[in-house]
């Protein structure tokens, strides 16, 4: 066995450490911090590795209440994310639609409005939407569904809401329309006047020489839509029949693409100059 005698410096070091055991903490804390920092470059990756290894699922008790709570929370968050994704997708689609509409007709802007109230009497087709003159909605603005189906016009406006009169309401009156030929070009369009029947359809008359058949598109004819090629869709011809008392005329029945009484969201078409409720 090798028993070398410790030298004086070693004894001095031991004595110093013995004293250091009873020194106030601030004197040694500084040195401790430096030692810890020195080890970080190697200890940090090891820590990371340790935590990865420690997180192996089979080490966890599946019945652990904390784990069960976290799993439930995780599931709720996932559902919420899915809902948000669906909402974001719907909003993106809506945004694209609005952008497309504005690209077609730059003199107008579109505001999406949600249906918030029905007519209190229950006998009217009128409904309220959640934007009004504060957002620049004027009386007479067109309301569209899906960007192309005519729903109606704004009949009354307040700062925070607007009342829509559906085009299918008899109160709307006669609608100036055009029946587009099968090719869809305006050159062969046949003007006509449609009257709301009250059951969600329109009726109109056209000369027997007009080549109308069920399925043709009927669009709005309005000088207000000067910038666009065709007005918004009113509907499709559902039926064509000879007029009883006038053999040179045919009666047509037009049905909108959507059931307008069920529409929940509309796009209001507002002139660009109309802003701030003025």
């Amino acid at each position, binding site marked *: 066995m090798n028993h*070398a005698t410790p030298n004086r410096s070693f004894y001095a070091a031991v004595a110093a450490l013995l004293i250091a055991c*009873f020194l106030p903490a601030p004197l040694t804390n500084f040195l401790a911090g430096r030692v810890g920092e020195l080890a970080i470059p190697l200890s940090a990756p090891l820590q990371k590795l340790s935590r990865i290894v420690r997180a192996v699922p089979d080490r966890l008790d599946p019945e652990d209440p904390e784990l069960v709570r976290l799993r439930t929370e995780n599931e709720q968050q996932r559902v919420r994310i899915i809902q948000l994704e669906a909402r974001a997708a719907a909003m993106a689609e809506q945004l694209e639609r609005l952008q497309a509409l504005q690209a077609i007709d730059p003199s107008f802007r579109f505001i999406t409005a949600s249906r918030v109230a029905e007519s209190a009497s229950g006998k009217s087709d009128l409904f309220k939407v959640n934007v009004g003159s504060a957002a620049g909605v004027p009386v007479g603005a067109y309301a569209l569904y899906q960007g192309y189906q005519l729903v109606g016009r704004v009949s009354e406006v307040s700062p925070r809401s607007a009342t829509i009169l559906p085009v299918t309401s008899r109160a709307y009156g006669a609608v100036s329309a055009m029946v587009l030929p099968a090719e869809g070009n305006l050159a062969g369009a046949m003007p006509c006047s449609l009257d709301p029947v009250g059951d969600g359809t329109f009726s109109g008359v056209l000369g027997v020489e007009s080549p109308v058949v069920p399925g043709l598109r009927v669009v709005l004819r309005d000088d207000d839509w000067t910038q666009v090629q065709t007005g918004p869709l009113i509907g499709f011809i559902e039926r064509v029949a000879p007029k009883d008392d006038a053999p040179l005329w045919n009666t047509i029945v037009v049905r909108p693409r959507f059931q307008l009484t069920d529409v929940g969201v509309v796009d209001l078409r507002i002139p660009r100059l109309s802003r701030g409720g003025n």
Partner: protein
Amino acid sequence: MRWTIFAFFAYVFLALDLGLTPMLEIGAGERGVAPCFVLILMVYVASMGPSQAVRWAALILGLILDLSSIHPTTAGGASTVAGPYALGFVLGAALTVQLRGLVYRRHPFTTGFLTLVAGACAFVPAVFLLTMRRIVFTGLNSENVIVWVASDQLVHAFLTVLYSAVIAVPTGWVLNRFAGLFGFQVHPRLGHPR
């Protein structure tokens, strides 16, 4: 003994102590027990190195352990105490030097066994010194009083030494591969230093 190699291993073993605890810890929180790699290195060096160098090596390793240990204080702060483990390691190394002639040093289990014995010898004085410090500072009504219950710490130290002894078996085997790098000259048959 080559001090640069020693310094490198000291650094690596300190990082193992600081980094692998989350993975190797048994139990959690204050009751968690993890092996002490620095202790294993001290025992290995003490079992193989020249006595004079071993004393300094043990003191340095103990001081490293001291400076990387943080004790909570009763005032809600943290405190580092230099000395307890350094002095404990010196005692543990001295015991190892006494015992190493009785064992076959290159056997992997030797490092485990010596870690158990020398670890107990090192940790008990360290717990004693820290307990004394707590008593002294409590008497001085200082804010540097560490949160320290001697009985709990002794149990914890024993479990740490036990766990370290188990880990010391594979670690000792690995360290034996580097005996030449350390500059330890070992008898080829007996495993004793020349």
